[in-house]
């Protein structure tokens, strides 16, 4: 955070995002990464869920919305997480929902990450008027309450698909990335190796991709993790208030259905606990992974 503090009184105030110090830490980083319990533990959980999301649906019914079992049955040997009031298999819905969750999270994070990086790099590297304009746009989008914007857009979409949802979330989640990347670029730009590259006459794009980007790779990885977590939560929120995909299933939609069909009043806890728990565990593990990464890249933070 120190570099950022020096340039402006607005550090990237995203908990857990730290900066990468210096070069040549990669091998050392790997060594510490394998020994960081937060990182390894978090990663293990996320990978387990990811595998379940990819492989799981092959082992359950083809369409998680069909009525396969007795209505409103509790967890049992044949229906691990019970059934809904219609007799849909909650476990099957959960697996398909995980898939949707990972899809929305990664696509939205990718979009937001790319926009944020491009805007941030350009602003920070070019400076001057370009910086002024881009920074202004960033600040405007930053102040807009994202969820409210997403709501108003989603509400007007005639047919909502999971892809569209991922795109609109991505389109409005990038500003803090741009801002943080800009600060990073500003500090890296003034480092010697960039000056050297520039003196040797390399074009701007190559300087950015060859010299600056690799130095920020680990940082960007952490940004991606935070974007992923945030997008998953946004998607779940939209789904829950009834602005989710109009077809298919996701963890947020499961919560929405459970609420609409009075699962709480009817005591069908197996319908509303798993989807929320799934989101919480995935996002929580990602956050913990992120702390671990932070400690790996930032030796000062390592536990003594």
């Amino acid at each position, binding site marked *: *955070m*120190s570099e950022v503090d020096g340039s*402006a*009184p*607005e*550090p990237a*105030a*995203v*908990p*857990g995002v*730290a900066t990468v110090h210096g070069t040549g830490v990669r091998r050392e980083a790997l060594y510490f990464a394998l020994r960081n319990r937060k990182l390894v533990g978090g990663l293990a959980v996320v990978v387990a869920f990811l595998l379940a999301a990819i492989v799981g649906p092959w082992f359950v019914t083809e369409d998680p919305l069909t009525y396969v079992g007795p209505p409103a049955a509790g967890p049992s040997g044949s229906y691990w997480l019970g059934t809904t009031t219609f007799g849909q298999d909650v476990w099957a819905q959960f697996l398909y929902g995980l898939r949707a969750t990972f899809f929305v999270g990664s696509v939205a994070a990718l979009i937001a990450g790319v926009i944020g990086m491009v805007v941030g790099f350009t602003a920070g590297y070019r400076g001057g008027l370009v910086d002024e304009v881009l920074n*202004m746009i960033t*600040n*405007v989008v*930053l*102040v*807009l*309450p*994202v*969820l*409210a*914007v997403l*709501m*108003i857009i989603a*509400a*007007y979409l*005639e047919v909502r698909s999971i892809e569209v949802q991922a795109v609109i979330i991505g389109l409005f989640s990038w500003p*803090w990335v741009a801002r943080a990347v800009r600060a990073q670029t500003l500090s890296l730009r003034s480092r010697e190796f960039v000056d050297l590259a520039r003196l040797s006459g390399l074009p701007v794009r190559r300087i950015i991709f060859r010299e600056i980007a690799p130095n920020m790779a680990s940082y960007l990885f952490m940004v991606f993790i935070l974007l992923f*977590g945030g997008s998953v*939560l*946004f998607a*779940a*929120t939209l789904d*829950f*208030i*009834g*602005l989710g995909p109009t077809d298919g299933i996701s963890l*947020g939609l499961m*919560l929405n259905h*459970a*609420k609409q069909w009075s699962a*709480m*009043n009817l*005591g069908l806890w197996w319908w*509303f606990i798993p*989807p*929320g728990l799934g*989101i*919480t*565990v*995935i996002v*929580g593990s*990602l*956050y*913990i992974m992120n*702390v671990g990464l*932070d400690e790996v890249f930032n030796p*000062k*933070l390592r*536990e003594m």
Partner: protein
Amino acid sequence: MGRYFSRKLLIYALTFVVAVTINWLIPRFMPGDPVSAMVARAGLQSPEGVAAMREYYTGLFGFDVPVWQQYLNFWGGLLSGDLGVSLWAFPQPVTSIIMAAVPYTLGLLIPAILLSWWAGNKFGAYAARKKVLDNTVLPIWYVLTATPYMWLAILLAWALGKVAGLFPVGRSFSASLRPDWSWLFISDLISHWFLPFLSLFLVAFGGWAIGMRNLIIYELEADYSHYLGSLGAPSRLVRRYAFRNALLPQVTGLALQLGVIVGGAVVTEIVFDYRGLGYLVLEAIKASDFFLLQGIFLFIVIGVLVANFIIDIVYVLVDPRTRAGMGGGA
């Protein structure tokens, strides 16, 4: 300092214009026509009756003038506090519906935001670099901050409301009461308020505590801390300085998190059937009441902008550099 504020205000003004324009634009590009919706509800059979109704509602919603004029009228109405007529609660004006709901939402949000921020910072700072404590509470905070607002709300409503029966779930106050300032009513109000408040508070609390804990660790590793330590300053003093410095980014963080917390309030209200803005959002969506939805959106944007501005002022007041008159760029 003046430059700093004028720059901020410019950003806010721009944001506002963008928000208003998005707001005005979207329904005009999207399917579903409020005039037809109103006419269809009336269930008229005769074509002349339908035409008469159509004309009436077109005029009422201001669709009978050219588009550019609609845009200007929208601004004009907005500046005079007129956000149009709600379809859901026809013929009530959107502004009055929103105003009736706002106290409930603010009553949830303000205590939840301030208390979670304050408590999160305190506990986060306290736990930082205390190995045992850090290892036990940190995972809990991470789980809290990763929890979707509505899920925690459902869990609390189910466990403390439905199963344990400690708190009522549903509505902002009991249906049998008339609003007045009696103890009966106020206590009822508080008991309905508590669970939604708690679920907002808990999720936000986790985030602040983690943020503060991490910032304190950075600060404690900063050169000045080591320097102070090597001078023999008591660790309590070092920690206090670290806390002060860490507060600044947390203030900025507050501004950044506002939108998210407002979103959290929306879904929490929906879970608890708490009759604030979140409830209105759901109603507006269900009834395809674009005017109401636009009004709520604008209200949230304005609220967030105002809160941002207040935070800016607080920031300047708290920041020792600006206090010392050094000023600061944006």
